[in-house]
């Protein structure tokens, strides 16, 4: 029995139950130790399992545990069972370790919030649901976790529910992801009706045996699963919810909307990669979606003023890179970028949280500045995160993962120069907007004093994440730089090695030079525009064309307005129309009738006793008359 598989998700669940039942009555110290401690225990257990996995790999590189049979329908049994293989181990480690650091940070960040125990209860529930999602060995349990994280995302975006705008953002996130989830549910039904099982491993064996490459059903099923992944991971065309999701507290943005939940779509595609290989058009669509998303989101990030929205668009853009990698068949490169992204994006969000707190809840970067000397620990860790996000060559984790994706986008049979060029342009935009953010926030002259100094509970997670953002990349060194693909070798039992590279064409080294140049050029341009010549930017935005482009990208490419016109308004009009159809008028007629009768009868209740006596006498007379007339 592999009981650790049970206990890893059990601790956060127990924490949630304790906090939900008794959280209000517990002092804050106890709430904090339950909330962060439960995830910490999971992280310890997951690390121990990981070490055991590395030192003495279990049979077939898989640990599994069946808890109980959930339901038996039509000859199939769906059981609640967990499976830990290298792919889910990496997810579990990232979720618990990064999750623990974020919980630790939140113990201080949320210190003065009224909903302290509610916050940690939701966070623990989220970690539990996310662990169920990645540990599930069949798609039904995976779907359970999938909806569970969606629920927690909704609850935490609307955490400060007193402001209706936050509630609207939460509803938007929930409804938009629901569109994708519906597609995914239909995909599950389709897979079940054709293959008769929903166990992931059985599916991955049955599908190639049943369908040839390019079979219609396989394409349809893969497309439907992709719909779910696109919704959850905020990719084109369902990316509109993520920027608004920043209404939640910053640790939530770090944990759910950067490090873990939004990458569930990447996990799903990687987990069912066999199916996607059977459906070449869908896989090509994955790559195109990724490339388009990373460009659109990158340009949007460039126009934002709100520091958290920059990071939100950046998250969308980086997940676009992961989708690009998935689309060209570089499965392990996508997971590698997921891991490094979790480190540096969580770090950036937590750093932004400190900045926002220190600037009296100010989100606008143009009203910040000069925080370099006032928040040194935050500045240096933020700089490390930004460097990693911009893929500064050789020293940062982001460089290794992004470079791997760009290399595969160029060299893989499914890749090509266009995808590579999109990725390279994206790399330039990424470092431009990242360092625009750094320079605006930490450099220049100081505009407001700071009201808050982060304590140790906040700086320690920042430093640990900064460390991970650097060393996290050295587990996979490309051929030109040491050739040590530990990460993809570790994932090899689950995900096949990267696609074969075409022998002719440019060398990997040349592409790395290009990527490094794009990254450094972005930083350089940002330095010129926002530090050396800030007047030039002001002059540039005075040009009408530039200004309208800025407005367009500030709204994230105006997708909201488009969807409003395409879906929301027609729907509202339809609802208005069907508000007064004849079926409804039948129901409202009954209600009107009884309310009229009520008014009529209430007239008789005058409170005048002689009228009542009269009524009784008349009634008695009428009954007597009836008896007399009817009696034979």
């Amino acid at each position, binding site marked *: 029995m592999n009981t650790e598989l049970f206990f890893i998700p059990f601790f956060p669940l127990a924490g949630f139950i304790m906090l939900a039942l008794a959280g209000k009555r517990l002092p804050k110290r106890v709430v904090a130790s339950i909330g962060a401690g439960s995830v910490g225990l999971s992280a310890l257990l997951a690390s121990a399992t990981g070490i055991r996995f590395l030192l003495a790999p279990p049979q077939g590189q898989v640990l599994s545990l069946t808890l109980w049979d959930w339901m038996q329908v039509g000859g199939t049994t769906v059981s609640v069972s967990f499976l830990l293989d290298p792919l889910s181990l990496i997810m579990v480690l990232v979720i618990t370790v990064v999750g623990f650091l974020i919980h630790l940070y939140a113990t201080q960040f949320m210190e003065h919030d009224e909903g302290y125990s509610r916050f940690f209860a939701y966070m623990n529930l989220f970690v539990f649901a996310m662990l169920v999602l990645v540990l599930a060995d069949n798609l039904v349990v995976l779907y359970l976790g999938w909806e569970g994280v969606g629920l927690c995302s909704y609850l935490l975006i609307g955490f400060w529910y007193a402001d209706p705008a936050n509630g609207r953002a939460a509803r938007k996130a929930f409804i938009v992801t629901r569109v994708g989830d519906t597609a995914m549910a239909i995909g599950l039904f389709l897979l079940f009706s054709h293959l008769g099982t929903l166990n992931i491993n059985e599916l991955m064996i049955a599908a190639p045996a049943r369908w040839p490459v390019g079979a219609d059903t396989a394409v349809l099923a893969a497309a439907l699963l992709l719909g779910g992944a696109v919704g959850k991971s905020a990719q084109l065309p369902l990316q509109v919810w993520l920027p608004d999701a920043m209404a939640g507290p910053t640790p939530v943005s770090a944990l759910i909307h950067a490090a873990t939940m939004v990458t569930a779509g990447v996990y799903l595609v990687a987990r069912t990669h066999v199916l996607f290989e059977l459906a070449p058009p869908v896989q090509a669509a994955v790559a195109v979606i990724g490339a388009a998303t990373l460009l659109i989101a990158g340009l949007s990030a460039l126009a934002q003023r709100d520091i958290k929205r920059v990071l939100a668009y950046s998250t969308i853009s980086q997940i676009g890179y992961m989708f690009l990698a998935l689309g060209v068949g570089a499965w392990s490169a996508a997971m590698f970028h997921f891991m490094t992204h979790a480190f540096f994006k969580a770090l950036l969000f937590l750093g932004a949280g400190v900045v926002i707190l220190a600037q009296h809840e100010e989100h606008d970067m143009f009203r910040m500045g000069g925080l370099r000397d006032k928040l040194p620990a935050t500045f240096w860790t933020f700089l490390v995160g930004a460097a990693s996000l911009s893929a500064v060559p050789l020293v940062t984790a982001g460089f290794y993962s992004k470079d791997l994706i760009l290399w595969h986008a160029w060299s893989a049979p499914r890749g090509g120069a266009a995808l590579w060029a999109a990725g390279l342009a994206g790399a330039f935009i990424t470092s431009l907007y990242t360092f625009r953010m750094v320079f605006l926030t930490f450099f220049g002259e100081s505009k407001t004093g700071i009201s808050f100094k982060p304590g140790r509970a906040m700086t320690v997670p920042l430093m640990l994440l900064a460390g991970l953002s650097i060393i996290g990349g050295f587990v996979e060194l490309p051929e030109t730089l040491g050739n040590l693909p530990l990460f993809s070798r570790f994932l090899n039992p689950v995900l096949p090695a990267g696609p074969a590279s075409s022998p002719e064409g440019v060398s990997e080294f040349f592409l790395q030079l290009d990527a490094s140049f794009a990254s450094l050029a972005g930083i350089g341009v940002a330095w010129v525009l926002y530090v050396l010549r800030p007047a030039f930017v002001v002059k540039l935005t005075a040009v009408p064309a530039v200004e309208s482009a800025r407005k367009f990208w500030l709204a994230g490419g105006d997708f909201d307005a488009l969807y409003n016109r395409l879906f929301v308004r027609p729907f509202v009009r339809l609802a208005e129309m069907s508000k007064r159809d004849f079926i409804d008028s039948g129901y409202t007629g009954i209600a009107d009738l009884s309310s009229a009768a009520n008014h009529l009868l*209430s007239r008789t*209740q*005058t*409170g*005048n*006793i*002689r009228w009542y*006596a009269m009524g009784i*006498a008349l009634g008695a007379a009428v009954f007597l008359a009836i008896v007399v007339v009817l009696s034979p």
Partner: protein
Amino acid sequence: MEHGLILAAILFGLGLAGVLVRRNIIFMLMSVEIMLNAAGLAFIAAGARWGAVDGQVMFIFILTMAAAEVSVGLALVLQMYHSFRTLDTDKVSTMKG
């Protein structure tokens, strides 16, 4: 027997008219008393007609009940006068029907 019943009917009608017409609660109570006695008279007359003792038994019941009713009724009249300073039933109606 018929005379007795006719007298009872007349008495009952008078009592009912009194309840409906009078606004003073004391007079209404007295009218109710007349109605009760009319009913009692009808029982007696019917009992005499059939030579059964039930009619007189019923009258004793009605008498007892009337005594109880008057004691409760007068107590309520006192309360009513205490809180409203009037014995007019139309004026004590506080409902907004």
